[in-house]
């Protein structure tokens, strides 16, 4: 492998890893607060892409307005889903909520097919993001370059929010105990909605960064990234934000290099084996809380 090729792979891996990280945060935060594997998260990400198409193609909005519209619409979608499909099941067994999440996932995929047809739709180009930059033999688009930077910036802000603000404290409290949180005067539904707001906000941003260099949207476009990001969240220890980010980058880089080594057929096999091996060494992921039950 030449140095150039190596750098190119690194860039690819870090960039896709950054997007995985953004989406994985959504999984991990929802899991942290509701202990729910939100199977629908990948599909919310897919819907965000359709919102972009509508704003920029059908309503001809300029990209900076469109992005705001997309973020708003995605957040509303996410919060609505939480209200309709998860909130009524707050006191139900965990598995029932999980089935509701699978239901939402099927629902979004099929509604998208029903409304927009299963044919891929072109994702609108955002001028400056698609510009090609090259330095020393490596050529890449702006978006590939800024994705990891944006990811890290968001993660930094998010960590501040969670660890050093009142709402962050409330989120951590709610994640452990609904009833007692209510007794503190915390409106748990608001806090949970807020968690979905953050998750969906990042999914919307992630979708812009993801679909810009892969400009094609179809109803199943969210399912594989969804699964991978979920795996990323588990890698890092589900519930942990820095863990999800690290997991995203690990998956992005490892699958890129495995493909680079010529084993593209087995890239997912390697990823899963890596996951299982890591779990065997650290049973709750890299940054996961140890599940120690006091006897």
């Amino acid at each position, binding site marked *: 492998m030449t140095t150039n090729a190596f750098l190119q792979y690194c860039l690819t891996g870090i960039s896709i890893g950054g997007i995985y990280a953004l989406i994985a945060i959504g999984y991990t935060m929802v899991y942290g607060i509701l202990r729910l594997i939100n199977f629908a998260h990948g599909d919310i990400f897919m819907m965000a892409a359709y919102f972009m198409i509508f704003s920029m193609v059908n309503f001809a909005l300029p990209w900076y307005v469109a992005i705001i519209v997309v973020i708003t619409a995605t957040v509303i979608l996410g919060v609505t889903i939480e209200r309709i499909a998860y909130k009524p099941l707050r006191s139900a067994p965990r598995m029932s909520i999980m089935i509701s999440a699978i239901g939402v996932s099927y629902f979004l995929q099929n509604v998208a097919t029903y409304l927009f047809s*299963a*044919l891929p739709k072109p994702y609108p180009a955002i001028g400056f993001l698609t510009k090609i930059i090259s330095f020393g033999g490596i050529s890449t688009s702006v978006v590939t370059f800024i994705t990891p930077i944006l990811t890290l910036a968001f993660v930094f802000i998010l960590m501040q929010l969670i660890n050093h603000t009142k709402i962050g404290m409330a989120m951590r409290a709610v994640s452990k105990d609904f009833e007692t949180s209510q007794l503190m005067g915390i409106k748990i539904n608001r806090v949970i909605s807020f968690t979905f707001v953050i998750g969906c906000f990042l999914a919307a941003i992630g979708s812009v960064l993801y679909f810009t260099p*892969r400009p*094609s949207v179809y*109803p199943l476009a969210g399912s594989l990234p969804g699964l991978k990001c979920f795996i990323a969240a588990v890698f890092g220890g589900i519930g942990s934000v820095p863990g999800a980010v690290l997991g995203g980058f690990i998956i992005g880089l490892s699958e890129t290099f495995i493909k680079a080594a010529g084993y593209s057929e087995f890239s997912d096999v390697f990823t899963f084996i890596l996951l299982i091996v890591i779990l065997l060494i650290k049973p709750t992921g890299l940054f996961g809380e140890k599940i120690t039950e006091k006897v």
Partner: protein
Amino acid sequence: GGNASDDSAANNETAATGVAIEGDTIKIGVFEPTTGENGGGGMQEVLGMRYANQLYPTVDINGNTYNIQLVEVDNQSDKTAAVTAAQSLISSGVVAVLGSYGSGVSIAAGQTFTDAQVPAIGASCTNPQVTLGNDFYFRTCFLDPFQGTVMASYAMEQGYTTAALISQNGDDYSTGLAAFFQQAFEKMGGTIVANETYQTNESDFNAILTSIKAANPDCIFAPSSIATATLLLPQAQANGITAQIIASDTWENETIINAAGSAAEGVALSTFFDEHDETNPVAKEFVTGFKEYLNGNPQNLTSNGGSDGVAAVSALGYDAYMSVYEALKALDGAETLNSVALRDTLKAVSFNGVTGAISFDENGDAIKNVAYIKQIKDGKFAFLKTQSAE
């Protein structure tokens, strides 16, 4: 559980005679994916069938006029769902079945149709396994070994000696075609310098493309789904890949040009049909009529990906319907009117279709020995040449 002794004669009683034509309606099943991975292409194939049904809604047999009714089911591009979908068609009393887009689901459901003795006519399913050893499956398109060989000869003629392959793991259409191409290309003296695969619903091809770029092939053969094409092309462009990209019939779809834009320029592909072919009057008539049909209903236009481009699969869907229609007409004068008799008349059908003259060989495959090679130029599919397998 049950302890009653088996009495399989009862099972086969009706099966021996197939499904009879009764009443004044003839039901024809449409077995296509309209959701899932191949939902888009499947829907376009359905559009062709619906259009044909709209043009030829009735048939006269033995002095009676029958209405032909399409019964559509969605096989969800999923092999498990496909079998039950096929069963539900049989259950609703269809005498023939059209479809499906995507060979995998057709292979999965083939046995169901055979068991029920109901003939099925595939439109665009190109895998040899669909009709092989199945007396009730026909198809209106050419086969993958042929298509793979055609593209290999095309590549050779263009002077390409090295090629890279990209195919979808677990997808019989994609891997099958890649394998046929490889066989033919290597036989003709070419070398495969890279053989990459990806998972279903994969949307990031950067790593694969970087490897291929490093292998520096003359051309890249990438048989895949429409969705994959729209993702692969822009990423190839972004990676600065200059090798000629060639592909197969699925790629003849305007969606790809719309989605990939400039990245699609120059791609060459084989297909069944040429929209601009002036020499075939049937095709010419079909194209004008079909465009009107699409534009006449916004929902049709949405289903066709938002444009009125005529996809090859729509044309094949039309021809599949017409095959059954011709076979039904040929039933005129027959004593027993049932699906087995229909199968027998299908064997002898011969007519001028949109995609050329159609008649079936002993396997049930349409006898076609040329493919159209097209190239994307200025955002359009431009006819390049016809190519036969040499």
